[in-house]
């Protein structure tokens, strides 16, 4: 029966019946706008009505709030057109009708007067104006409401007039109906609100209120206002929920007590019927349980939602409802039989799903499975727990206790009802097998759906529970697939606890399946899992260890990944360079972090080595040193293998880049350069689904297989304690080359744990070394001239020094090896040193070496003496004994030290090579020696200056100067001391007077010799020191004498007044032979003369030379020939003024040979050699010559251009000209006495 608003009909029933059909049809045809109270939006509404005959009982009694049965409109029908009839009967009837309405307070009525032509015709006699009856009725009943009386004309005729009147009638009816709705519903709502506000009062009952508000909902539903109806139920829902929550917070309402009663029925939701009257009655009676109320409420909501075409909201709300109910029951502390709720939830889920399936087609369902999948999963979950509860899934079958529980649960389901979902209803009643199948199907369905909507994690969780189910059923292979899939996702996302749990399940599964290798692998992982208790870990560890015992019959070994068992954390080389010579001991220390909970005895730890023959390795030490890129300690960074954040693995290993340079083989020029990635094999690895990098369960045996046959590092019988362990290997170092550690393998019984790649790669290098001999000074610097100790170091390399092997040193004159009585050699062996025997012949010194094993160091010291080269004598190159050209030690000045350095080369023949080894030693000469010739008139003196430039203090003794050629010459020493202290950085000057009998040779070849020794050493330590030098043109040729003559009449010169300078040049000797030829020319008169140039120069500006300052003198080449020159000079200052300088130079006519004058400039530059000018500044001197318009031009450009044709000036050698007035002074008086002296004092 469909509810429609009730409209009562009074009056002429026959008339109404004739019109009923068209009325009922036409009323809902046009929508009406319904304006609502409380600001609700207006709605367009199609009105329908249930027309019933008016009875007084229909009118609601006072206090009856039922709305469904409420007549919203009362209609009085009449077709009376006769005034009499109206007055007699109709009016009365109407009056009665009106009265009864009024007594019940109903103001919603309308009187319809039907007019037909027939009636008009029939009653022609009593015709009144048509309006009159209507007017009468209006005046009688509708005193102010004229619209309460409506005329319907010719209703059964098909005319426009009839249609018009129908339309106006329908409009009127609709308007009135809506008015009535608004009024009555508004009143009802107000009452309802009032009732709701009373909810804090003690006697208030939710059930009563529920009924009231539901009435409103019914009306809205009746009016097809489902949205509004749903709102009513939602409000009720919210109100109830709030009360339950308040209860939880301690605010109890009395009426809630009825809902706290123990749950007796758990038959699930019932959604087939629009209104579950059974439950509604229960609510009305206040006997409903919480589940009943919730079920009823939801069934109503569901009905409305389906009306509203929103089935997916049903599923969503259903899930919330089910969760909510469970929580509410818990909150209200309602006692529920164990499993009852599971039953209720399970059945409810299926009911909802069923209901939804009923109203949607398959395609819609599939497209919206995201809405239903939650329910599927929930149902699965509940069924699972039910199955467990009732013992249906255990392999032994249910126990009696389980059966009792099942019976109890079934009792709560109530009677079997055919309209409930058949399959699900049967489920709980069927035996274990079918429930399992059902559950399986359910799980698969849920899983598929989760997959379809992309909720993979949810799908895996369902899969996991399915796996548990399969495990119980004994279908372990299927179980393992599901578990592995789940595990993969947990591992890849780094959820350690689920990983551990799932892995444990897998372990169980694998054990039962007999997959030994996988099981051991998993066990190893679990044994190292910190999430497990120590006992569990020990258990799994034991599983591995005992595997040996029960599988010893089978010969096959099981290979597992090392990462689960132990982690290689560090690798250290001893020595740290990781580079040794062949045959030496190299130790490799591994630090293994054992993940096992107990100490594990390992039969063998082995590391396989890849060997590369290194051809460059034999070239010696230097090459080995270059390539020490591998540090002694390699740290291995471990990603957490089993659990923890996979950040490291997610990010992947970092790139390891290296520079490569491609050089052309011919000329070593760079062809190309680039960057290579060294670990592409790690980075470019495929991240495919079946072997994620960090899932050790998936390690396939071929990849971890140990490569046999390669060189191995092995250690037997190691005990690995939990945590870090240090294992020391002795690495093979036989052949030179590069050894790369590739794999690591630990053997425990039949189980091998293999680390397939040691990464980053670890290498060590074995090199072969050539013997090397080096010589270095024992103390720096080596001083020439003194015996010095030098250290010979022999690195034997691969060569073993045999008995009788000797080093052959070629002797040289410049650096003899001093024989020493005891010379010991030290080897790097701790054994004591042994005495070396040294035998010297004139050519060769032979040092016989003690037997020394390879790769040892042999050290010995020899005393050598480097003879200081005494001068500039350079004998021709001579050949050494071995035929090599002897390299003369060449002295040079070293930038780091003021001492002059001499490189001494030694040539040594070694027994291991056919080639001689050339070694160089650098010696330093401790002295710098200078000599000079001093003159006093004709007398000559030789001064030698010895400067000690070393850091050592010396004693100088037996200082001697000898002349080689002239025996008649006597060198008289003016040195008083026998021995002289020569401190570091100090000088000693020695002086000799040269005496000769008849003639002084122009050239002297002198040898200065002295003995020296470091300070405080005895006489025997004195070593000779020689210094050769040559003096040329020693004889004094000219003497120059200058006089200053005061002005006439004055006794002294006065400043500013001219005075005379008289220069007197006297020839002292007869010309020597060479001189004659060289520079003289014969005048026409046969007199030999030579030309001299004199020059007066005063660099200190004391004097002004007036007139000619220089001039040419032609000197006769005879003794005592004298030339006087008068020059006017003027003193510029008063005081004792030094004489102006007077220079005498040789003037060479242009014919004279150029050969004497190698450098055109040197005549001026070498002025400094002149005795006269020693203190003068060269440049200043030159400038003065220029400024005074000297006869010769010193413009270098001029001279060079003119070349040899120019006459030249040549200075005399020191000692050839003696200046008597050198450094003389003359008193010059001031010009006047009234000088003002300015004194400034500050």
């Amino acid at each position: 029966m469909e509810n429609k608003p009730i409209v009562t009909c009074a009056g002429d029933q026959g008339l109404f019946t004739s019109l009923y059909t068209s009325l009922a049809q036409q009323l809902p045809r046009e929508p009406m706008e319904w304006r609502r109270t409380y600001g609700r939006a207006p709605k367009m509404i199609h009105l329908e009505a249930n027309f019933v005959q008016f009875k007084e009982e229909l009118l609601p009694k006072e206090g009856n709030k039922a709305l469904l049965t409420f007549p919203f409109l009362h209609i009085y029908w009449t077709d009376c057109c006769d005034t009499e009839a109206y007055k007699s009967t109709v009016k009365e009837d109407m009056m009665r009708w009106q009265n009864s309405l009024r007594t019940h307070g109903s103001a919603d009525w309308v009187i319809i007067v039907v007019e037909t032509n027939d009636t008009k015709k029939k009653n022609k006699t009593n015709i009144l104006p048509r309006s009159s009856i209507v007017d009468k009725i209006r005046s009688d009943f509708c005193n102010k409401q004229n619209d309460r009386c409506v005329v319907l004309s010719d209703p059964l005729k098909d005319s426009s007039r009839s249609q018009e009147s129908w339309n106006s009638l329908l409009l009127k009816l609709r308007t009135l109906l809506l008015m009535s709705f608004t009024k009555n519903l508004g009143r009802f709502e107000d009452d309802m609100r009032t009732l709701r506000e009373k909810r804090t009062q003690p006697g208030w009952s939710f059930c009563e209120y529920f009924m009231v508000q539901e009435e409103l909902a019914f009306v809205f539903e009746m009016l097809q206002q489902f949205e509004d109806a749903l709102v009513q139920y939602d409000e009720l829902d919210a109100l109830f929920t709030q009360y339950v929550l308040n209860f939880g917070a301690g605010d109890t309402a009395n009426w809630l007590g009825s809902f706290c009663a123990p749950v007796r029925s758990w038959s699930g939701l019932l959604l087939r019927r629009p209104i579950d009257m059974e439950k509604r009655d229960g609510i009305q009676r206040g006997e409903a349980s919480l589940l009943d109320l919730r079920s009823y409420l939801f069934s109503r909501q569901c009905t409305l939602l389906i009306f509203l075409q929103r089935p997916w909201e049903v599923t969503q709300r259903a899930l919330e409802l089910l969760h909510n109910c469970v929580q509410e029951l818990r909150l209200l502390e309602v006692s529920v039989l164990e499993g009852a709720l599971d039953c209720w939830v399970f059945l409810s889920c299926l009911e909802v799903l069923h209901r939804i399936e009923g109203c949607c087609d398959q395609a819609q369902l599939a497209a919206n499975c995201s809405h239903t999948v939650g329910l599927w999963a929930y149902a699965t979950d509940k069924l699972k727990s039910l199955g467990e509860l009732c013992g249906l899934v255990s392999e032994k079958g249910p126990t009696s206790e389980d059966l009792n529980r099942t019976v109890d649960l079934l009792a709560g389901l109530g009677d079997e009802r055919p309209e409930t979902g058949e399959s699900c209803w049967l489920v709980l009643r069927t035996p274990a097998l079918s429930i399992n199948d059902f559950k399986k199907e359910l799980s698969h369905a849920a899983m598929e759906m989760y997959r379809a909507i992309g909720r993979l994690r949810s799908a895996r969780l369902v899969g996991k529970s399915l796996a548990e189910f399969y495990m119980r059923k004994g279908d372990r292979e299927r179980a393992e697939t599901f578990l592995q899939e789940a595990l993969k996702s947990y591992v890849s996302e780094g959820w350690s606890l689920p990983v551990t749990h799932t892995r444990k399940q897998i372990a169980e599964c694998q054990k039962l399946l007999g997959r030994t290798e996988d099981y051991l692998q998993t066990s190893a992982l679990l044994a190292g899992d910190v999430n497990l208790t120590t006992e569990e870990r020990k258990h799994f560890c034991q599983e591995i260890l005992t595997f040996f015992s029960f599988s010893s019959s089978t010969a096959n070994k099981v290979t597992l990944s090392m990462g689960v068992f132990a982690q290689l954390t560090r690798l250290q080389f001893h020595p740290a360079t990781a580079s040794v010579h062949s045959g030496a001991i190299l130790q490799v220390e591994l630090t293994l972090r054992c993940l096992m909970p107990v100490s594990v005895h390992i039969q063998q730890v082995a590391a396989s080595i890849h060997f590369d023959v290194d051809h460059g390795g034999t070239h010696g030490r230097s090459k080995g040193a270059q390539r020490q890129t591998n540090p002694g300690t390699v740290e291995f960074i471990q990603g957490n293998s089993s659990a923890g954040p996979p950040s490291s693995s997610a990010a992947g290993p970092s790139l390891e880049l290296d520079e490569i340079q491609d050089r052309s083989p011919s000329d070593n020029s760079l062809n190309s350069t680039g960057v290579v990635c060294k670990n592409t094999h790690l980075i470019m690895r495929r991240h495919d689904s079946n072997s994620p990098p960090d899932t050790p369960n998936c390690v396939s045996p071929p990849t971890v297989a140990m490569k046999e046959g390669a060189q191995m590092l092995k250690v037997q019988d190691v005990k690995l304690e939990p945590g870090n362990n240090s294992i020391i290997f002795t690495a093979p170092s036989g052949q030179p080359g590069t050894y790369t550690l590739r794999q690591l393998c630990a053997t425990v019984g039949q189980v091998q744990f293999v680390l397939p790649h040691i990464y980053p790669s670890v290498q060590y290098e074995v090199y072969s070394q050539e013997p090397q001999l080096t010589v270095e000074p024992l103390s720096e610097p080596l001083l020439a001239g003194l015996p010095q100790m030098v250290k010979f170091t022999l690195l034997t390399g691969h060569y073993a020094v045999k008995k009788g092997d000797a080093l052959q040193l070629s002797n040289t004159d410049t650096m003899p090896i001093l024989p020493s009585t005891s010379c010991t050699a030290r080897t790097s062996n701790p054994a004591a040193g042994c005495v070396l025997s040294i035998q010297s012949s004139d050519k060769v010194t032979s040092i016989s070496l003690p037997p020394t094993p390879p790769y040892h160091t042999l050290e010995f010291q020899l005393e050598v003496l480097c003879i200081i080269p005494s001068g500039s004598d350079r004998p021709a190159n001579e050949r050494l004994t071995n035929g090599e050209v002897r390299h003369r030690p060449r002295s040079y000045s070293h930038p780091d030290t003021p001492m002059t350095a001499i490189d001494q080369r030694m040539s040594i023949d070694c027994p291991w090579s056919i080639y001689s080894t050339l070694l160089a030693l650098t010696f330093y000469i401790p002295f710098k020696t200078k000599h000079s010739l001093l003159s006093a008139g004709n007398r000559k003196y030789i001064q030698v200056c010895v400067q000690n430039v070393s850091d050592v203090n010396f004693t100088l003794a037996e200082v001697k100067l000898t002349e080689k050629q002239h025996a008649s010459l006597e060198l008289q020493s003016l040195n008083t001391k026998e021995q002289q202290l020569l401190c570091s950085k100090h000088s000693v000057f020695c002086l000799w007077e040269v005496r000769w009998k008849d003639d002084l040779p122009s050239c002297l070849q002198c040898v200065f010799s002295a003995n020296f020794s470091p300070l405080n050493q005895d006489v025997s330590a004195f070593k000779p020191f020689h210094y050769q030098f040559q003096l040329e043109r020693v004889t004094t040729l000219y003497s120059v004498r200058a006089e200053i003559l005061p002005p006439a009449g004055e006794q002294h010169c006065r400043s500013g007044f001219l005075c005379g300078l008289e220069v007197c040049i006297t020839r002292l000797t007869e010309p020597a032979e060479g001189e004659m030829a060289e520079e003289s020319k014969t005048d026409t008169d046969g007199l030999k003369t030579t030309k001299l140039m004199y020059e007066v120069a005063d660099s200190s500006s004391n004097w002004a030379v007036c007139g000619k300052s220089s001039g040419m003198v032609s000197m006769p080449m005879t003794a005592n020939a004298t030339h006087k020159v008068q020059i006017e000079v003027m003193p510029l200052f008063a005081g004792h003024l030094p004489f102006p300088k007077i220079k005498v130079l040789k003037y060479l006519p242009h014919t004279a040979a150029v050969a004497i004058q190698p450098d055109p400039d040197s005549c001026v530059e070498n002025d400094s050699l002149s005795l006269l000018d020693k203190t003068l500044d060269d440049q200043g001197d030159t400038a003065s010559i220029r400024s005074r318009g000297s006869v010769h031009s010193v413009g270098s450009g001029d001279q060079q251009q003119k070349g040899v044709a120019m006459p030249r000036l040549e200075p005399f050698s020191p000692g050839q000209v003696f200046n008597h007035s050198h450094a003389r002074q003359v008193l010059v008086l001031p010009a006047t006495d009234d000088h003002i002296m300015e004194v400034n004092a500050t």
Partner: protein
Amino acid sequence: MAVCIAVIAKENYPLYIRSVPTQNELKFHYTVHTSLDVVEEKISAVGKSLGDQRELYLGLLYPTEDYKMFRKLHNSFTDVMCNPFHNPGDTIQSKAFDGIVSGMMVQTG
């Protein structure tokens, strides 16, 4: 009522996870992990919708009858991330954060 608080990295591994009834820890881990499905769905939905109407509250993540889950404690998390010594991506080991989480659990539980 907070029984379990988890902070998940964007790569879906747990940065921090703690639950109050420790005996049920495993279940919570499973639950939180599974709820990532919904988180992923919601986050990708945000990306599709207009502009940045970022709803930080993710709503019901996992249908469970036992607990409702929600997300909060963003401020504390921000503090942790601002720690210069914290390397984003590492698991959270901050005492302060732990304290705040404990507080949230105690006051309701």
